């Protein structure tokens, strides 16, 4: 409710039954089925905005912003792989499928990532020629559905990411509704055109971490131990999951917090399952440190990363790199105000659009409609993404230099304080102005 209305009428909106909640109750009553949507969690969660850096002063020595180097490169997957991946910046593009996204959008992601020397990732639906062609470093996801999975593409990949879950829906499988199952998507996934595709939530040929260890060995055998193998999990029981992933033989662990986006799933899943990214990182780092594997098995963090401060804070908490999905789509043009009129015609508005599953995205990104897809120029959109990635990198470097660090990975928890008790407890850094970390003794 706007403040203006409140001030002039004295009407008071219920915090419990606000208008959004009431609208959902009405929608449920009218349709009898749960709401499905894309995007990530929209509720307010403890996040990186609740952390601040302690810049250098008397007790710390800063680096010159424009004269002294701050390294941003990172090597991923040097535990077992013969060919680890070297990235120029520690910001990667998260897995998003062709099917959920248009071919032009996938190509743009590849172009943008390659322009700045980082990697992009396939998704639930296999590898497209456009994506491979435009991605100098491409991570191939190995998902429960195994849509489009084949050994030729596996060997073309620069790394393999075994996906156990994602932050938007840990414990859930993918979903692609019939509107987006075009001829090409159907062919790639070996499915009838137009069906509502429900991906499995569990891998079909292994159960549990002991089996996973054998599965990883199989993938290494098929690829002759050339490429790194990542394990991606949605953030829930992160401490235990990371330990098991390392034990299963991962070169890299990817943790996706609940702010991570999705192409489509139940709203109840997005908003009520998983833990915030902020809470997951210290758990993951603790697990790695206890095993003596921190920095040996690299940690990639994703879920709600928007700017260079978020990147720097992830790395200060112990991540080796981050991955972005929703932010990358926004950089391409997702939810752009130039399409506001068209968003309103389909019952949404620029900045609010989350019905990715319907395939009617006016920006031409989360669609398979040929006419809408044409709206996205992959060259121009890719360049926008590259620009955005450059800004994230420059911002993260700015903060690192201010903390006296000549490498983003030299940032550390000691550089951070928290603004709230909750974020202090989750991030395991002191409440600002105190030496108190909730849950830890003085």
């Amino acid at each position: 409710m706007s403040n203006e209305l409140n001030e002039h009428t004295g009407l008071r909106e219920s915090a419990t039954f606000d208008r959004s909640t009431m609208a959902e109750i009405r929608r449920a009553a009218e349709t009898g089925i749960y709401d499905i949507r894309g995007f990530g969690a929209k509720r307010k969660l403890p996040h990186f905005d609740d952390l601040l850096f302690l810049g250098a002063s008397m007790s710390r020595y800063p680096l010159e912003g424009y004269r002294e180097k701050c390294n941003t490169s990172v090597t991923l997957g040097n535990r077992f792989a013969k060919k680890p991946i070297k990235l120029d910046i520690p910001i990667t593009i998260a897995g998003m499928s062709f099917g959920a996204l248009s071919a032009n959008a996938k190509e743009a992601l590849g172009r943008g990532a390659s322009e700045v020397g980082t990697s992009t990732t396939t998704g639930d639906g296999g590898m497209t020629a456009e994506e491979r062609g435009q991605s100098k470093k491409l991570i191939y996801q190995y998902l429960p559905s195994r849509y489009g999975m084949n050994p030729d593409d596996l060997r073309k990949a620069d790394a393999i990411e075994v996906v156990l879950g994602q932050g938007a829906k840990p414990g859930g499988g993918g979903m692609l509704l019939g509107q987006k199952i075009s001829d090409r998507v159907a062919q790639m996934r070996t499915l009838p055109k137009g069906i509502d595709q429900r991906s499995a939530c569990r891998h079909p040929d292994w159960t549990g971490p002991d089996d996973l260890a054998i599965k990883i060995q199989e993938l290494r055998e098929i690829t002759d131990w050339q490429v790194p193998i990542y394990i991606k999990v949605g953030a829930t029981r992160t401490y235990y999951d990371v330990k098991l992933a390392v034990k299963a033989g991962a070169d890299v662990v990817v943790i996706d917090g609940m702010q991570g986006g999705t192409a489509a799933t139940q709203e109840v899943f997005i908003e009520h399952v998983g833990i915030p990214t902020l809470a997951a990182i210290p758990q993951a780092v603790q697990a790695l440190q206890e095993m003596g594997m921190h920095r040996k098995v690299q940690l990639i963090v994703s879920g709600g990363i928007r700017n260079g401060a978020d990147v720097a804070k992830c790395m200060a908490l112990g991540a080796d790199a981050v991955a972005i999905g929703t932010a990358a789509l926004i950089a391409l043009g997702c939810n752009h105000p130039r399409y506001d009129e068209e968003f309103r015609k389909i019952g949404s508005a620029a900045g609010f659009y989350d019905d990715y599953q319907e395939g009617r995205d006016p920006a031409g990104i989360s669609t398979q409609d040929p006419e809408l897809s044409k709206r996205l120029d992959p060259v121009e959109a890719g360049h926008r993404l590259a620009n955005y990635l450059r800004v994230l990198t420059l911002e993260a470097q700015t903060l690192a230099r201010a903390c006296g660090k000549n490498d983003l990975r030299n940032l550390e928890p000691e550089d951070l304080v928290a603004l709230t008790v909750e974020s202090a407890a989750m991030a395991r850094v002191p409440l600002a102005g105190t030496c108190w970390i909730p849950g830890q003794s003085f």
Partner: protein
Amino acid sequence: MKTFDLTQNTVRELNQALHDQSGECMEREFDVFSPHGQHNIACGLDQNLSVNIMGHAGYFCAGMNKKATVTVHGNAGQGVAENMMSGMVRIKGDASQAAGATAHGGLLVIEGNAGARCGISMKGVDIVVKGNVGHMSCFMGQAGNLVVCGDAGEALGDSLYEVHIYVKGHVKSLGADCVEKEMRPEHIKELGNLLSRAGIDEDPARFKRYGSARQLYNFKVDNASAY
């Protein structure tokens, strides 16, 4: 013919030797002795090879096979011929669960029984089982054929897409959206070809055909209880 003894050589050495044939093929026949249930034997092949495994194999034997003919002269562990693309894999004994999982093509023949989830998420492979298959076989099967000469366990073909399932024996129960369908002449012919390719002498007329009712292909409120 080249021989490998897995008490003397590692699985890595064997697989590398097999993968080395993918370019210029120097040797087409391989016999593998003393496999002792080791995992990932002969996976990722990409050449017209003939590989005989003289004993039991562990998990994911012949995984992602292309073109090659792999014969296990014993039992096979979990996920045999998973994601096979082409070629043929024959198991002389029994196969554990998830045999032929997600496989896109080729022929998988199991001369004994197969465990649970045989043909799970299969995507075009043909699977012929001389014995029985376990529960949830062909779960979410997308394309291809599953032939069972014995009995099938619970929830056969649950959430099935377009796989043709033929069973000669008793089906304990059908999964969601899987129904018995009419056995028309084209199906008798298709099944006859499958049995012939598998080298199994059975009368196609004694089989029943099962397939998808296609009622769960799109979300409908009325189907909520089936999900």
